[in-house]
Each structure stands twice: as structure tokens, then as C-alpha cells.
């Protein structure tokens, strides 16, 4: 052994022993502290994750619903123009066409603004989802395993040590992700509490948007259905001339169309449920079925979109 090495050893060894003890003690302490909170942290992060997913899904459904509401509005207006056409002179047709198109464009422009805003909301929920779904804890778990491996090189006896029934190696490997989960939970909790007044206002306004859209869709569908039935079935039957070859099928299809009042009512609840779930989440009062109800209501929006698409098909 070189004189240089032996001169290092007396200074290094006490230092290494001290560091070894401190690190092991620190990890064990963190482990004990974190384990007492681990189930809570995991459950809370799961709740944030579900809420973020629900928020994202809601925003996407609302974007689609706004598009559908606009399409129905255009179709209903077109059918009304066709209904009036025969009774008006060319000048009157021109005037009513322009007035209605202008009014339609105004509503569609506002719907476009609402859609743009919903994209903002989706951006918020995407950021929330990214934080709640972060795989940092699992990545850190690997780093922690490396760390334990290094510790074992310093202290071979650590490998055999146990705490209760758990092997220290496994125990420490699990501790760091738990600590990170606590950090993650605290970060999400802090942010949501900070954003609570703003999000509550947003979700309250979403309720108003959804109610207005749903009522508009219901009215436009009724108007569209009445006008189509008149123009495609009743008028051709009453007036002189040949009936269209598809007259029977058209009549059956139009008379079988049912309005979706119940689905619209469920869809209208989605924004309200999202808001109530958010309040429960921030107050840590989430019940077992709260997310089920929320996802069911968001599903109702998607049902309405599907039904409106099939109802407006010629």
C-alpha cells in the first residue's frame, strides 16, 4: 500500500462511516414518515388524475357539441328558408335569405369564440393531467434502487437488515417514490387551491354555456324535424304531382325520429357535476361514486352528439 493511500484512509474512513449512518438514518426516517402518508398520497393523486381526465374529456366533448349545435342551427335555418320559398317573391326571398344568413353568422361566430375558450379549458386540464400522471415516481424508483445498491457496497450488512417484516433494500426502494408522490400531491393540492376561485367561475360559466347550447339544440331539432316532415312528406303528398320514390321511407324515418329531451337533461348536468366534483376534490370530500356520476354525465354529452348527428342525416 502506498504511503499516499494510507495517508487518505484515516481521514476518509470516519467521514464515510458518518455519511453512511446519516444517509441510512435519513432514508429510514423518510420511509417511516412517508409510509404513514403513502396510501393517502396515492389515493389523492388518483383523484387528481381522474378529475384531470374528466376535465379533458368534458372539454373535448364540449368542443364537439359546439360544432354540432352550429350544424343543426344551419340545417334548421335552411329548412325554414325552403319552407317559405314558395310564398315569397324573388326580392322577398333575397331579403329574408340575407337577414337570416347574417343572424346565423353572428351566432356561429359567438359559438366559434366559445369553442376557442373551451380549448383553453382543455389546455388547463391537459396540464393538470400531465402533472397528475407524471411517471416521475417510477423513474425515481429506479434511481432509488441504484442508490440502495451503492449504499450496500458501503455497508454489506444493510442488504440483510429488516424493518418489521420488510427487507430494508425493498423498503428503501419504495420510500423515495412515496416521498415524490407526497411532493406531487402537495404541488397539485396547492395549485388547485390557488386556482379554485377561477376554476369555480369557469365551471359555473360552462354550466351556462351547456344549458344555452342544449336548449338551442332541442329547439333547433324540433324546428328542423317539423320543417323536414312538412317539406319532404306532407307538402308533396298534399300538392299535385308525383310523390318522390322514397316518400314512404322518408315518412317512416321522420315520424320515428324521437327528440332527446332526457339525454339533453343528463348532458346539461355534466358541467354542474364537474363543478361539484371539483369542490369535493379541493375539500377532500370525494365520495366513492362521484367520479362515476361525472363520467356518466360527460357520456351523456357524447350521446347527444351521436344522436344529433344521426337526427340531422338526410
Amino acid at each position, binding site marked *: 500500500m502506498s504511503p499516499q493511500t494510507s495517508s487518505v484512509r484515516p481521514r476518509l474512513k470516519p467521514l*464515510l462511516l458518518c455519511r453512511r449512518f446519516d444517509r441510512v438514518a435519513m432514508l429510514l426516517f423518510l420511509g417511516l414518515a412517508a409510509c404513514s402518508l403513502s396510501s393517502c398520497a396515492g389515493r389523492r393523486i388518483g383523484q387528481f388524475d381522474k378529475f384531470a381526465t374528466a376535465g379533458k374529456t368534458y372539454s373535448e366533448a364540449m368542443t364537439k357539441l359546439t360544432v354540432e349545435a352550429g350544424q343543426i*342551427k344551419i340545417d334548421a335555418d335552411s329548412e325554414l328558408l325552403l319552407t317559405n320559398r314558395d310564398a315569397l317573391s324573388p326580392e322577398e326571398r333575397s331579403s329574408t335569405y340575407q337577414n*337570416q344568413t347574417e343572424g346565423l353568422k353572428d351566432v356561429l361566430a359567438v359559438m366559434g*369564440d366559445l369553442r376557442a375558450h373551451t380549448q383553453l379549458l382543455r389546455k388547463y386540464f391537459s396540464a393538470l393531467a400531465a402533472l397528475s400522471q407524471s411517471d416521475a415516481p417510477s423513474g425515481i424508483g429506479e434511481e432509488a434502487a*441504484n442508490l440502495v445498491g451503492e449504499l450496500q457496497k458501503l455497508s454489506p450488512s444493510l442488504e440483510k437488515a429488516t424493518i418489521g417484516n420488510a427487507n430494508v433494500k425493498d423498503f428503501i426502494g419504495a420510500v423515495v417514490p412515496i416521498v415524490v408522490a407526497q411532493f406531487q400531491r402537495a404541488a397539485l393540492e396547492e395549485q388547485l387551491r390557488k386556482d379554485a376561485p*377561477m*376554476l369555480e367561475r369557469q365551471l359555473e360559466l360552462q354550466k351556462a354555456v351547456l344549458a344555452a347550447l342544449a336548449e338551442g339544440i332541442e329547439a333547433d331539432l324540433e324546428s328542423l324535424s317539423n320543417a323536414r316532415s312538412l317539406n319532404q312528406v306532407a307538402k308533396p303528398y298534399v300538392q299535385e304531382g308525383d310523390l318522390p320514390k322514397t316518400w314512404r321511407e322518408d315518412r317512416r324515418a321522420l315520424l320515428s325520429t324521437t327528440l332527446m329531451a332526457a339525454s339533453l337533461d343528463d348532458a346539461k348536468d355534466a358541467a354542474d357535476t364537474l363543478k361539484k366534483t371539483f369542490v369535493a376534490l379541493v375539500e377532500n370530500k370525494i365520495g366513492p361514486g362521484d367520479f362515476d356520476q361525472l363520467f356518466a354525465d360527460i357520456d351523456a354529452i357524447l350521446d347527444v352528439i351521436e344522436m344529433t348527428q344521426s337526427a340531422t342525416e338526410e
Partner: protein
Amino acid sequence: MALAPYELEDLTLKTLRATRAGMLSEEFQLTLLLKPAAERKAAALLLSDVQVTILKLEALELAAIRDDLVANADELEAGAKDLKAKLENLEQVQEVVAATAQFLAIVARIAALAA
């Protein structure tokens, strides 16, 4: 009790929508077909006016909500930005642990040399 302005708007919109649906019903329109041309024209122009008024009221209703939403847009964007910053912090925690593990690896090599 007098209705609040928004209740009055809501009632007006509901009434106009019901009027439009009624004027587009087969019952109304088939009866109208038997009437003189002037009467049919008057009804058609009235229906068009009803439709334009509905569209105007709908635009007003949605625009009022839009304006409230836009008033909160900056806060919403700031919230999303803060969340992203927190995600970066979380990634930094991971980096710190990785750095610590690397440091310990160096310490272990020194310890092995010193043994």
C-alpha cells in the same frame, strides 16, 4: 313579481322558439296552403322575422357568457402555466435523486479504493 331582465330574455326566447315550431308544424302549414297568396306571404315573412329575432337573441345570450369567460381567460392560462412549472419542479426532484445516486457511486468507488 316583475321578471328580471335575463328572465324576460329567456321567456322571450322560449316563446319565440315555440312560435317557430308551431308555424313550422304540418297543422299550421297545411292550413296555410289553402289560404290566399297574400296571407301565405305575410305568414312566411313573419316566420322569417321570428327566426332572425331568435338568432339575434341566441347570439346575445351566448355573447354575454362568452364575455364572462373571456374575462377569466388570462387566469385560466396562468393556471395552466403554473401547472406546467410544477411538473418541471417534479422532474427536478427526479434529477436531484439521480445526481445523489451518482454522487454515492463516486463515494463508493473512493471507499473501495480506501478499503
